[in-house]
């Protein structure tokens, strides 16, 4: 294992996949000579050239549309959306065209594009910091991946670039300053495989992306109170690793779902219901963003989005029997 910055893990995945498959091309704002908004494409333009690493204008609908068309025509485009919020402009080609193509053509056509977008709040305010990944889980035909570590970013991006259909790969602004262990040899992480980040027997905490980091902090605080929380990193929002979730939930009997996006119709809403259907008698609860836009003020941002102490309180409430039995 080597310790790499998050951006370096992404860059290594792209480097390897572009060398392996000449159909992989990159489209996005500032990704060529500039090296990407987070430095994640540094060196790729110099290595693979302008035909495969293409700067695009600030026109996300066109970027995703071109990527979807190029994918249908036989390429494997990776489209960069600087902030996940801007994917709203590209939803029509992604949802109506790319995700439907296999179904509409009875499996004769496919659009294997990857959209990589950066979610999460870090002072950017209402329209540049949203976590809207639960919207995407609602779309048949889309794979949705959201790693929380550099190692998984590497393994999942490689999987995305080989997937048969459209994938949305979601990273997070607060993950980029972190380093993490990345395997020295090539290793893929399968879509639909969650990861156990911490063992515990009292409550299962399920999170994805940066909220895993926060959930692990909360698990430390709970441990100080004698409560052993098991932390599961979803890694893949669709498909969902129901096997791992159910196995853990059966053992603990309590599952808390934490996310940075809106709690209403959020990831946790779907997972809690789905897991109740699979595990009889399970006590569930969820914690997401308050029903307000993401604030630009750091104080209000922290008030709006789950923090470690809020996760601790939610876990204590759940274990105290206040949650639905």
């Amino acid at each position, binding site marked *: 294992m080597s*310790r790499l*910055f*998050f*951006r370096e893990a992404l860059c290594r995945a792209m480097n390897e996949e572009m060398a392996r498959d000449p159909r992989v091309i990159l489209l996005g704002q500032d990704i060529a000579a500039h090296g990407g908004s*987070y*430095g994640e494409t540094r060196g790729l333009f110099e290595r693979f050239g302008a035909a495969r690493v293409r700067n695009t204008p600030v026109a996300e609908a066109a970027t995703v549309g071109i990527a979807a068309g190029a994918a249908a025509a036989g390429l494997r485009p990776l489209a960069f959306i600087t902030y996940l919020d801007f994917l709203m402009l590209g939803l029509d080609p992604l949802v109506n065209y790319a995700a439907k193509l296999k179904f509409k053509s009875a499996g004769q056509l496919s659009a294997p594009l990857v959209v990589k977008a950066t979610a999460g709040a*870090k002072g950017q305010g209402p329209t540049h910091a949203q976590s809207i990944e639960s919207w995407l889980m609602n779309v048949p035909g889309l794979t949705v991946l959201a790693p929380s570590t550099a190692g998984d970013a590497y393994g999942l991006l490689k999987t995305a670039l080989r997937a048969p259909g459209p994938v949305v790969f979601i990273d997070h602004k607060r993950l*980029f*300053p*972190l*380093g993490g262990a990345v395997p020295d040899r090539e290793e893929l992480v399968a879509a639909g495989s969650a990861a156990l980040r911490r063992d515990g027997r009292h409550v299962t905490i399920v999170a994805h992306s940066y909220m895993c980091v926060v959930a692990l902090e909360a698990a430390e605080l709970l441990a100080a109170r004698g409560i052993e929380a098991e932390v599961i990193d979803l890694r893949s929002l669709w498909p969902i690793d129901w096997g791992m979730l159910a196995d853990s939930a059966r053992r603990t009997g309590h599952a808390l779902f934490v996310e940075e996006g809106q709690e209403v119709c959020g990831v946790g809403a779907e997972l809690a219901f789905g897991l109740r259907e699979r595990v009889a008698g399970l006590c569930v609860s969820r914690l997401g963003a308050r029903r307000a836009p993401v604030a630009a003020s750091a104080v209000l941002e922290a008030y709006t989005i789950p923090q470690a102490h809020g996760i601790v309180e939610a876990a204590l409430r759940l274990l105290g029997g206040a949650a639905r039995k």
Partner: protein
Amino acid sequence: MIRKLMIPKELGDSVEVRLLEWCKAEGDEVKVDDAVLEFETDKAVVLVSAKQSGALRRCFFGAGDWMKPGDVAAWLSDLPNEPLPGAEEVPEETLIVDFETT
């Protein structure tokens, strides 16, 4: 006087940094404006140069090592042969340095 060379405690939003290379070796003289070490954040490469003269005496990290903001990277002394304190002692004085970010 023994001085510590510290990775700044406040380094934007950096959580960890990686030491790229020492521009001096232990025992080398350091003059004003000499580059001492280079480290990397998630966004930038930072060259640290001395703003006071001395000698680089002990490096606590090697090239490729990960450090955190606030870590003491090295000890320097004003005079080349000043005795160094024991490992458990921490110099009070911080070497004055300059940062160039690329």
